[in-house]
């Protein structure tokens, strides 16, 4: 066998692709796509509304049709669904529900089934028995809920079975359950379940009426309407829900269904129980959403009524109801969601003018003069503030501040309203004057707060505003306020969260860490933090510090090092999980960004410190190796050679690498070896290459290291090693082919190298050997270190040894190809090997036949038209124009 002599520079030129200037940058924005033709589905328009008669114009019909379908579409709106879920989550149900009198509808069996006679009067529902049992009963809420679900099924079933009287009767009984608010926290859940049934019933009625209206003549329609008439205006609270449920049906009877809404709002006042009446209003708001169009006047009345009721609850201290034993606080909290929802409904899509009208309807927009007398229940104010459009908030800020100031009651904490105002103001950029006025006022107010928690909650909301408007004096004031209160009483867990949010806001506002730390109270505040919040803040500081380029200030480095150490130790001792490796990543980044400039010894010392301090972080150690390597390169670049310093850097890397997980070691050893070669440290170089190859042994043990990318990475690293070995000078104490041979032995002895990997690695070794045999090497690294072509110039045994190693490699290569299980892969690797052989050796008969076999293998695996196959055959015929070329062309 004989190596083919190669002229690398000529080959390079011959194979280089011609370069052409591109018209457009490949990453520039693509041209705008052609305008899409909008396809509008008009839906089914051949609907005839019998109620409209024949005098309608087509436009009105289609409009009405839309409305109809809208209401028919009885799926609850997304908002309502999510609201219901939140409602249930907000008031989790305890295991048992005490029911002061067990409603018979909840009793299983019983007389529910025997009331087939349709002429029974509704008054039966007022079961006199009910009042006989005074004792409190309890049932589990699961039982309660499952019974309600059964009832729902029963109602549907009997409705569909044309037994509508039973269905209605059951519905009334179900609605009656809502009269009892003594179930406390269960009430919202109960409300959700019951209104679900009511909604369903409303839909059934609606469907039926609509069907009737569509398919029968006028007579039947009238009859049917009379049918619902009796269910309509019945004046009792339990019928409220029924009437509300069938609210959409009113449009069949009346021109102005809204009038009935207004009446219902007024009638809700007759419900004495505050909670029951609040939820009744809530359901009303929900049902009215189904109407095609509705005014919000009734909702405003609702809110006003609720406000009056709340005021009375809050003021009436001495009055104790026997029936209403609910804790006042609980009562208010039960009512809160209803206020929230109704407010949302009111302010949904209102114009500015309408908003002002609503506000004056709510009695909150009086003249400037008598502002002092206006006050509101703070919980109502809170939800109003939440929903008010931000323009209105900023234009009426003085009034709002006044309102908050004067609305101080037990229903809601005043400071939370101040807090909300801060958040709302930040939503949109308001004029500086307004913001200043508000901030000054608020700072005055909170200066009187004693509790750190309240102070922090308010301050947190205003931090953004203060920062935005660069009010440094305010910033100092609040920081001082915090540290004063924290000094006095310490910081609790809850307060820590507010503090964390505030500090994070501060940190994200400033660009440079120095600016933050120049705030007088800031370090002190950082010091009082602990636990999870401290970690979060520290992480922020760390990220911030590494955001803006290198860190060279020794004090900053020292501080960040301490912060990192705390974070690291917290992972260790506090059992804090660093799930996404954020801490490790940030610390690594910090270490990476540290730059001592010319003080390279200090830098290396810092790296040594880091290795000692952050023993747990694998990722970091890698960074340490990279850093020390780049430090060595930096030293090499200096005018004066610090050879001993480079040596210590490499030693540091050498010592650090073994403690890193095995699958990263190979690359790191290789990298360090490269640095050693650049520095001319030949003895280190040999040791590093040795370690790199021998760590392939350890890899075997680690089984997790088998993902395709990892494998490909490793193969490419090994090929890189082969490329690197070209520059590595031979050592006379070792055989010439010491490293290639070692690599070959390892790869062929480790069974986990797959055939494809082997082929690639063996090909690389063959190419390496070929290159080493050349008189002129393609590249050099360090001109001071002579290449092998010079070291072994004219040494015939050198060439001999290269050839003798190439023989077993070639054999293994061929057998590896045959072991490849996948056909497609086998074809490609056969071609790869064939190319490698053809470009490495002078093709004698023996090798030609080998190549031919490989081409045959490839042909059996892929189509003859394959470009790779074609070009390989061309190469073969070019390399050996004689025998093989003809053989190949014949076989083709």
């Amino acid at each position, binding site marked *: 066998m004989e190596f083919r002599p190669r002229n690398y520079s000529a080959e390079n030129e011959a194979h280089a692709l011609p370069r052409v200037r591109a018209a457009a940058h490949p990453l520039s924005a693509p041209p705008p796509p052609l305008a899409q033709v909008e396809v509008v589905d008009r839906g089914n328009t051949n609907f005839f509304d019998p109620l409209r008669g024949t005098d309608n114009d087509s436009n009105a019909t289609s409009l009405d049709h839309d409305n109809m379908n809208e209401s028919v579409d009885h799926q609850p709106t997304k908002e309502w669904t999510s609201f219901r879920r939140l409602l249930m989550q907000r008031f989790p149900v305890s295991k048992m529900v005490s029911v002061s009198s067990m409603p018979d509808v909840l009793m299983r069996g019983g007389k529910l089934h025997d009331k087939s006679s349709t002429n029974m009067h509704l008054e039966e529902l007022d079961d006199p028995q009910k009042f006989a049992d005074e004792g409190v009963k309890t049932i589990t809420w699961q039982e309660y809920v499952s019974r309600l679900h059964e009832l729902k099924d029963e109602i549907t079933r009997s409705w569909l079975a044309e037994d509508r009287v039973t269905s209605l009767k059951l519905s009334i009984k179900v609605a009656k359950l809502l009269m009892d608010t003594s179930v406390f926290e269960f009430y919202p859940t109960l409300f959700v379940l019951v209104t679900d049934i009511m909604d369903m019933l409303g839909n059934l009625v609606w469907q039926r009426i609509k069907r009737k209206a569509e398919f029968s003549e006028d007579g039947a329609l009238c009859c049917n309407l009379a049918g619902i008439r009796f269910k309509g205006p019945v004046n009792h609270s339990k019928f409220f829900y029924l009437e509300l449920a069938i609210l959409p049906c009113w449009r069949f009877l009346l021109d102005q269904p809204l009038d009935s809404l207004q009446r219902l709002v007024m009638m809700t006042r007759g419900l004495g129980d505050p909670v*029951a009446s609040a939820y009744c209003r809530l359901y009303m708001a929900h049902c009215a959403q189904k109407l095609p169009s509705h005014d919000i006047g009734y909702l405003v009345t609702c809110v006003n009524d609720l406000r009056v009721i709340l005021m009375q609850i809050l003021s009436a201290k001495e009055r104790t109801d026997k029936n209403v034993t609910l804790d006042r606080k609980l009562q208010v909290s039960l009512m809160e969601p209803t206020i929230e929802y109704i407010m949302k409904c009111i302010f949904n899509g209102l114009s500015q003018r309408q908003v002002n009208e609503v506000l004056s309807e709510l009695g909150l927009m009086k003249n400037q003069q008598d502002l002092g007398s206006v006050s509101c229940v703070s919980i109502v104010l809170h939800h109003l503030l939440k929903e008010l459009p931000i323009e209105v908030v900023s234009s009426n800020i003085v009034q709002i501040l006044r309102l908050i100031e004067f609305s101080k009651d037990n229903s809601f904490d005043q400071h939370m309203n101040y807090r909300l105002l801060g958040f709302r103001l930040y939503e949109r950029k308001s004029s500086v004057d307004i913001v200043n006025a508000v901030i000054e006022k608020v700072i005055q107010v909170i200066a009187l707060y004693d509790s750190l928690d309240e102070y922090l909650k308010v301050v947190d909301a205003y931090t953004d505003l203060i920062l935005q408007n660069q009010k440094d004096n305010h910033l100092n004031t609040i920081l001082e306020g915090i540290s004063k209160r924290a000094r006095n009483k310490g910081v609790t867990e809850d307060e820590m969260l507010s503090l964390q949010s505030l500090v994070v806001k501060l940190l994200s506002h400033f660009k440079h860490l120095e600016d933050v730390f120049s705030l007088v109270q800031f370090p002190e505040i950082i010091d009082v933090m602990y636990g999870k919040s401290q970690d979060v803040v520290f992480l922020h500081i760390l990220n911030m510090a590494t955001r803006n380029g290198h860190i060279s200030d020794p004090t900053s480095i020292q501080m960040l090092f301490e912060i990192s150490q705390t974070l690291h130790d917290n992972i260790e001792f506090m059992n804090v999980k660093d799930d996404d490796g954020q801490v490790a990543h940030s610390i690594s980044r910090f270490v990476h960004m540290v730059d001592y400039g010319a003080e390279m010894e200090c830098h290396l010392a810092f790296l040594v410190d880091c290795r000692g301090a952050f023993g747990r972080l694998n990722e970091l150690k890698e960074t340490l190796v990279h850093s020390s390597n780049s430090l060595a390169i930096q030293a090499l670049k200096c005018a004066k050679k610090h050879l001993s310093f480079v040596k210590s850097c490499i030693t540091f890397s050498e010592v650090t690498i073994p403690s890193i997980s095995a699958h990263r070691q190979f690359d790191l050893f290789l990298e360090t070896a490269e640095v050693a070669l650049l520095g001319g440290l030949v003895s280190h170089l040999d040791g590093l290459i040795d370690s790199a190859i021998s760590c392939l042994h350890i890899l075997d043990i680690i089984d997790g290291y088998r993902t395709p990318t990892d494998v490909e990475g490793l193969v490419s690293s090994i090929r890189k090693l082969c490329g690197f070995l070209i520059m590595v000078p031979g050592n006379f104490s070792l055989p010439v082919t010491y490293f290639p041979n070692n690599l070959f032995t390892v790869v062929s002895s480790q069974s986990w190298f797959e055939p494809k990997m082997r082929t690639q690695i063996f090909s690389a070794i063959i190419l390496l050997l070929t290159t080493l045999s050349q008189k002129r090497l393609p590249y050099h690294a360090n001109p001071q270190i002579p290449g092998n072509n010079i070291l072994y110039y004219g040494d015939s045994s050198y060439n001999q040894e290269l050839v003798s190693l190439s023989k077993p490699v070639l054999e293994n290569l061929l057998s590896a190809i045959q072991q490849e299980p996948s056909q497609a892969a086998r074809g490609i690797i056969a071609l790869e090997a064939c190319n490698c052989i053809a470009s490495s050796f002078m093709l004698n008969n023996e090798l030609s036949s080998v190549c031919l076999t490989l081409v045959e293998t490839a042909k059996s695996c892929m189509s003859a038209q394959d470009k790779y196959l074609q070009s390989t055959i061309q190469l073969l015929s070019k390399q050996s124009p004689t025998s093989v070329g003809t053989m190949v062309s014949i076989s083709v």
Partner: protein
Amino acid sequence: MSVELKFSRSNRIYRPSEALEGKIVVKTHSSISHYGIRLTVKGSVNLQVRGGSAGVVESFYGAIKPIPIVNRTIEVKPSGKIGSGTSEIPFSLNLRQRDENLERFYETFHGTDISIQYLATVDISRGYLHKSLSATTEFIVESDKADLLQRPLSPEMVIFYITQDTQRHPLLPEIKSGGFRVTGKISTQCSLSGPINGELTVEASAVPIQTIDLQLFRVESILLGDKIVTETSLVQTTQASDAGFIADGDVCRNLTLPIYVILPRLLTCPTTLAGPFSIEFKVAIVISFQSELSKLHKKSDPKTPRLWLAMETLPLELVRTK
């Protein structure tokens, strides 16, 4: 074999100037022959005296001769045959004859002592050998549009106030001493098709309120000899708690509650002042306070004043409007 009367209107409401229309539905397995199908319309005021302010002797005699309103028979079909299966024979009958304008058609009403009823009866006589087939169905008469009150409903409201001092019956000591004040207004004239309107405000009450109800009473008076026997009874006793609901529970003070009560059909009619009898109505606002005692007497006569009840009774004129 069955016969049935079906009116053209499903609600069976007719006015005196209108024709009573409908069809007679005969179902038979075999064809039958008959001597004519006749339809009779009969309307009358039935009076009865029971207890009330009537003496023992009067109550013995009980029923008083009814006052006839209308009694007319027409032949729908002369004698002939009806085929097997279901046959429908249409009919039409003018309630009020053009020439005789004497009858006054009172509106249908069902009270305790007075009952104004209109019945339509179909008779298919089949000679002496067979039993004649017949069916009777009530229909409802409402005043003619032409006879209705021409002037609009009086918007007049009567203002009332109820305190511990306006009550003529004894109250529980805590109610009496704690005091209460409920004010409001209510319409004095009310359309039968509309609601009773008004409003009410609880201004103060030391004792929590259980319920506030509106009760509708009818006052039926019958001239018996030279005496007038008057009976006051609750309309729709059975549904009292539902129909007249204003408030349930201890309502918020100083919040105006609406009074809105739909009148029950059939059990009410326009306020009628005829010679031999009269039908009038009144409403009572009844406040029931929370008390242990009230639980013991759940189903008591609403007219009886109780220790835990406060009430105010007001006259109400019912009219038929367009």
